[in-house]
């Protein structure tokens, strides 16, 4: 049974359809990633899943509980780390965790013990009684996550949990996510970082302009993503594009003025091949550029595939 079930979810803000007929399910124990560029509708979706926004239409079920009918009971089961969310800077790290625990009715004695454990785990023990005001961004985010898991939630929602943090904080947070997951917590996270989705997630849903373009394992999505890498090249003499296509090293060839844009999943190999190609035909390069994979291109590609299929 799906622990998160979303059916035909829709939300519009005036003229913008932020989330457009989105349906999916997340299995118990899964790490599910929601990947999409800025403005794709990730935050809007997570806000509807966590009961902060009411959908215009469609339903959300958390562990079988209808979010519309029993939001408080559903919220007891979840921990939420909002994108812009912040802990109270006028409280200490420990006070923040304890405040959070009180909302879930954890007794004072137990809460004290849990808070100390969490502070240890998040490497905040030494700063437990310092005001969060004086913390770095990464430390604030750690307090934020510690406060959100104080009641050992069944589901943890994280909206871009690592964006804007240094590598060390990022790693710590990823470790905690994996650890939580190993002890049975279902994780729903959003990101616009494909690498992060790849490392963490069992399944990834790709959202673009409010619509789900694909839901798949990260490996398969990564392949689609890699195919959007390209080499842009121009020679001093006109050439026949089909010659390059025959090499089987490119997935697609586009001519843009005197430039060729060659899509490939392995730009390094292609460049080496092109060097030989030019040598054999006595061509000179006038320009060459390797263009990295673009998330935007990958989304477009996946969206196209889906639209063609339907």
């Amino acid at each position, binding site marked *: 049974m799906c622990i998160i079930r979303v059916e035909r979810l829709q939300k519009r803000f005036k003229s913008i359809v932020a989330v457009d007929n989105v349906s999916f399910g997340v299995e118990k124990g899964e790490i599910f990633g929601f990947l999409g560029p800025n403005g794709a509708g990730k935050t809007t979706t997570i*806000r509807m899943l*966590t*009961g*902060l*926004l009411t959908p215009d239409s469609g339903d959300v079920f958390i562990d079988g509980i209808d979010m519309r009918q*029993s*939001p*408080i*009971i559903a*919220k*007891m089961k*979840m921990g*939420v780390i*909002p994108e*812009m*969310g*912040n*802990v*109270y*800077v*006028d*409280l200490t790290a420990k*006070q923040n965790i304890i*405040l*959070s625990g*009180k*909302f*879930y*009715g954890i007794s004072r004695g137990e809460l004290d013990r849990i808070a100390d454990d969490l502070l240890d785990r998040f490497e905040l023990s030494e700063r437990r009684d310092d005001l969060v005001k004086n913390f770095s961004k990464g430390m604030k985010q750690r307090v*934020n996550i510690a*406060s959100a898991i104080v009641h050992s939630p069944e589901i943890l929602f994280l909206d871009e949990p690592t964006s804007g943090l240094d590598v060390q904080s990022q790693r710590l947070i990823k470790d905690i996510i994996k650890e939580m997951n190993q002890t049975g917590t279902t994780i729903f996270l959003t990101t616009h970082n494909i690498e992060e989705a790849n490392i963490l997630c069992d399944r990834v849903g790709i959202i673009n302009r409010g619509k789900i373009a694909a839901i798949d394992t990260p490996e398969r999505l990564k392949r689609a993503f890699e195919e959007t890498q390209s080499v842009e090249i121009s020679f001093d003499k006109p050439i026949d594009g089909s010659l390059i296509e025959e090499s089987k090293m490119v997935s697609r060839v586009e001519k843009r003025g005197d430039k060729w844009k060659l899509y490939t999943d392995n730009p390094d190999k292609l460049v080496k091949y092109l060097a030989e190609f030019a040598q054999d035909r006595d061509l000179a390069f006038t320009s060459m550029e390797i263009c990295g994979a673009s998330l935007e291109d990958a989304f477009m590609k996946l969206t196209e595939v889906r639209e063609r299929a339907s």
Partner: protein
Amino acid sequence: MQAENLNSQFLRGIMVVTEKNIQIYYTKPPIIIFGLLFPLFMFLAFYLGKELDFQIFFPRLLAMFLFFIASSVGPLITPWEKQAGTYERLLSFPVNINTIILGDSAAGMIFGIMINLVVLAAGLIFLNYNLNILFLIAGTLLGALCFSSLGVLLASPSVPNPSYIMMLSSLIRFPLIFISGIFIPIENLHGIGRILTYFSPITYLVDIFNYSFTSQSHISIIIDFTTLLIFSLIFICGANKLHKRNLMKGL
């Protein structure tokens, strides 16, 4: 989960929100300035200008303090939390908008009552009354609820900066003081001035306090309590509607 559990979760939520507000907001400068210093200066300005019979003025002074302090907490909290980014977190706890409104209101009530006790104790050292304790307590509680909910209602518009709400709340709170029976007793007012006093909830509390201290009431103690209750309900329902509408605005 049964309804009973939900109710206890609701009450717990209100208590935790109240506790959080007390911990964080009681020491914020705007509360000290708009809640404590303003009524003090207003009183001094008024007092120094005239020969005043303190014995008669004291109940009105008490009402003014309760009004200013209880209504100064609410306008601060939500705008502040929206700006600091804590509001969205707060909403993700197992609470709803009513939990937050009542918790904010309770924080204003408690602050108002606390300071009022201090002012009352100071007054009773110098002045001698034959107090009607029951009406004094009931009036203080209901007045505190009414004024603190007004404060929460004033916090509902979504603004780019919390100081806008501070301005708005002053713009509304001062006229309510001036049209109430605090500075000019209601019995000395006639015509339009008198009618206006009936629009200020403070008028009714002044009447309750007058009655509690001097056994003299110019309206009717039953009407006073009923009207304050109606005002409170209007403020709480209004706060619920507007806060809900502006829930995700200004995050």
